[in-house]
């Protein structure tokens, strides 16, 4: 923080969905730092803006809020910051109030409230392009005069959309008086009244102001409303939602296929290249069986993960996600949750870590806790490699009807099983609810807009980067460690079995077999589950390593599927699939739950119940499928 001394600080404030984050990204580009506010688990997004003159300005992106009366931990941070109650946070020399020009009326009330805090303000009139398209031309100078606050137009989704704001900030912050103009004392906090009467007073003031500007009172039926007539329709809406979810899962499986084969052959090519250059021996084994086989087995799934994330980002950007939450609210209410839990749960399909963090938007503490507990039951993308491998190896690709593939159907069923078990757990937890009556929903359904390609690409690149870093760092180092454990010690001369069985990993596997044999796992799977603790997809790389070392040596990366096809029975494969629906092992999830709930018993409960469910489901699957196939 010491390097930030003397650099002017501004803070962005605004309603949720006002385009504040896009504007923040535009101002700071990649110079962002995400941390937590002291003592609370609310994300603190700060960044640095460098103006055309090369002078830096610090930018703090405060969580979105409707008013200065906080209901969620996120809103609390914003209110506390604005009211000067956060001792560790330096006071901003300027508050930039981001206002969505298409929803001027509601948003200006926040400006009214902020004016009473004694901060120096500037209004960033955002989304002016959209407002203009709706036929709303807002006279910036008139609005500024009426509000008594400078108003600058911005377009958060255009690369030069913040140019005017940056120019304003540069001029204002460079002026010498800005440093001296620290407010004598923050107006008494009590003056920021938040009751109904003061809200009505503010609303009247905003009404009068807008009327004096000749701002139309109501815009009639908007495009969003027309879309909502279909999307929120009591019958068409749920069917559409189901179709969208099904399309996502089909796409993940079928569209990714050609890319996956390409990556697969590239990995085999790399392995062959290493084989031809490096002489046989321990080092070659490390490179080929450890690094290439391990990383390759995970890397293959990059296309599927990209497709899944692309869909989630598109649904999020377009404004569809809150609609899905609306449609599912009744169903979620049945298990004691609200539609608000849907968005964290959907994020958990990508990864439970951002999913658990997204539960901060749930105001009700009990709903939040239950959502956290069931989030890992949503099938995260890290489980996708495992499902994909096992389905590819054991479920025949067979077109059913309408071009729907059996493999896609099985994948869909596995996802569905995760969702149903989550509902089951939530229902069990419903019994523990103390308060009576339904929790409020009060969720904004923002206007639809076309997702911005730039935003989508940025989001995807971020995901790819995170994934590749994981492959590059955690996954590869675990693979090397596993390779070491699987190769050392070397078996004595005259030992007949595969060398790996003599190694530490082999012995550990043999010991774990006592636990996992009843559910049909062999020692290779048991060993692979351990590094899978760090990240679920590592289990695949680990299997790659264990089998590569255990095999005769001719097998290289990318050939895992035919190998396990020969080595495993169908009940074993199904049992492992069932195990991974509940799979308790993911250290990052447990760590984020520990941090978010600030307790040990929540992550401990989570790990315990998931282990029990995974073991039970795998046992049941194994025994039932053996019985069905007549093996028992």
């Amino acid at each position, binding site marked *: 923080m010491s390097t930030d001394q003397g650099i002017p600080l501004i803070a962005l404030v605004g309603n949720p969905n006002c385009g504040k984050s896009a504007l923040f990204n535009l101002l700071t580009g990649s110079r962002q730092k995400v941390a937590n506010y002291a003592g609370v688990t609310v994300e603190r997004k700060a960044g640095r803006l460098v103006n055309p003159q090369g002078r830096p300005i610090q930018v703090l992106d405060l969580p979105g809020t409707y008013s200065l009366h906080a209901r969620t931990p996120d809103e609390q941070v914003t209110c506390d910051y604005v009211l000067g109650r956060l001792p560790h946070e330096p006071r901003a020399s300027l508050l930039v109030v981001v206002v969505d020009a*298409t929803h001027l009326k509601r948003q200006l009330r926040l400006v009214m409230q902020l004016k009473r805090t004694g901060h120096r303000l500037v209004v960033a009139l955002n989304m002016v392009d959209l407002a203009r398209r709706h036929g709303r031309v807002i006279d910036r100078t008139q609005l500024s005069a009426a509000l008594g606050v400078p108003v600058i137009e911005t377009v958060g989704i255009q690369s030069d959309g913040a140019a005017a704001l940056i120019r304003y900030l540069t001029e204002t912050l460079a002026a010498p008086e800005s440093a001296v103009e620290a407010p004598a004392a923050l107006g008494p906090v009590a003056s920021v009244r938040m*009751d109904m009467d003061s809200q009505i007073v503010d609303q009247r003031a905003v009404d009068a102001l807008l009327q004096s500007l000749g701002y139309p009172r109501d815009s009639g039926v908007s495009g969003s409303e027309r879309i909502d007539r279909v999307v929120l*329709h009591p019958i068409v809406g749920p069917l559409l939602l189901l179709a969208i979810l099904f399309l996502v899962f089909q796409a993940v499986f079928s569209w990714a296929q050609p890319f996956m084969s390409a990556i697969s052959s590239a990995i085999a090519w790399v392995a062959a290249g290493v084989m031809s250059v490096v002489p046989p021996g321990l080092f070659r084994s490390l490179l080929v069986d450890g690094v290439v086989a391990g990383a390759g087995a995970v890397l293959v799934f990059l296309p599927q993960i990209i497709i899944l994330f692309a869909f989630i980002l598109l649904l999020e950007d377009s404004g569809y996600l809150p609609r899905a939450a609306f449609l599912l*609210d009744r169903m979620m209410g049945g298990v004691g949750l609200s539609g608000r839990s849907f968005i964290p749960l959907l994020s958990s399909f990508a990864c439970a870590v951002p999913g658990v963090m997204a539960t901060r938007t749930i105001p009700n503490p009990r709903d939040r806790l239950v959502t956290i507990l069931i989030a890992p039951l949503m099938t995260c993308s890290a489980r996708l490699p495992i499902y994909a491998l096992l389905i590819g190896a054991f479920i025949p690709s067979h077109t059913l009807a309408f071009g729907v593939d059996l493999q896609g159907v099985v994948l869909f069923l596995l996802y569905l099983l995760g969702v149903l078990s989550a509902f089951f757990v939530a229902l069990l937890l419903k019994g523990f609810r103390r308060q009576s009556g339904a929790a*409020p929903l009060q969720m*904004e359904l923002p206007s639809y807009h076309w997702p911005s390609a730039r935003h989508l690409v940025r989001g995807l690149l971020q995901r790819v980067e995170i994934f590749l870093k994981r492959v590059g760092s955690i996954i590869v180092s675990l693979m090397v460690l596993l390779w070491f454990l699987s190769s050392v010690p070397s078996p004595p001369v005259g030992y007949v079995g595969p060398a790996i069985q003599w190694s530490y990993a082999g012995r550990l596997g043999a010991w774990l077999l006592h636990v996992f044999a009843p559910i049909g796992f062999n020692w290779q799977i048991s060993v692979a589950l351990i590094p899978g603790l760090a990240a679920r997809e590592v289990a695949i790389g680990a299997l790659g390593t264990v089998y590569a070392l255990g095999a005769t040596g001719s097998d290289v990366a990318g050939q895992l599927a035919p190998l396990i096809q020969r080595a495993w029975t169908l009940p074993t494969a199904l049992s492992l699939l069932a195990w991974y629906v509940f799979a308790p092992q993911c250290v990052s999830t447990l760590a984020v739950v520990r941090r978010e709930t600030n307790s040990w018993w929540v992550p401990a409960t989570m790990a315990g119940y998931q282990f029990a469910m995974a073991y039970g489901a795998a046992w049941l699957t194994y025994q039932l499928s053996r019985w069905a196939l007549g093996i028992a």
Partner: protein
Amino acid sequence: MRPQSDPTVLSQPTPDDPSIDLLQMPLRQEGYVVGMTAGDGVHADLAGRLGELGFLPGEPIQVIAKASFGGPLAVRVAGGTFALRQVEAATVRVVLGRQAPSTAGLV
């Protein structure tokens, strides 16, 4: 405003008080907010929050969708669209019509 502790009990408009609650409002008909059903505890908090979202006397309001099986309502108010559960919607009093009723006596 009449006291109404149980939001599931529907009230009929009378000549004295033409207001109905949001739950009774027909789909896609225009109307205006006249106030909140005052309640205690949770409900007082609820009313405050709804006010922040724009559910304030004099605001034009319209129900744009109702989810099936007693699910939430999508309500357009003060230029924004919000999803409300039925219990929440029951606390909002509205009057049908295009013109804002005089809210002088209601505030």
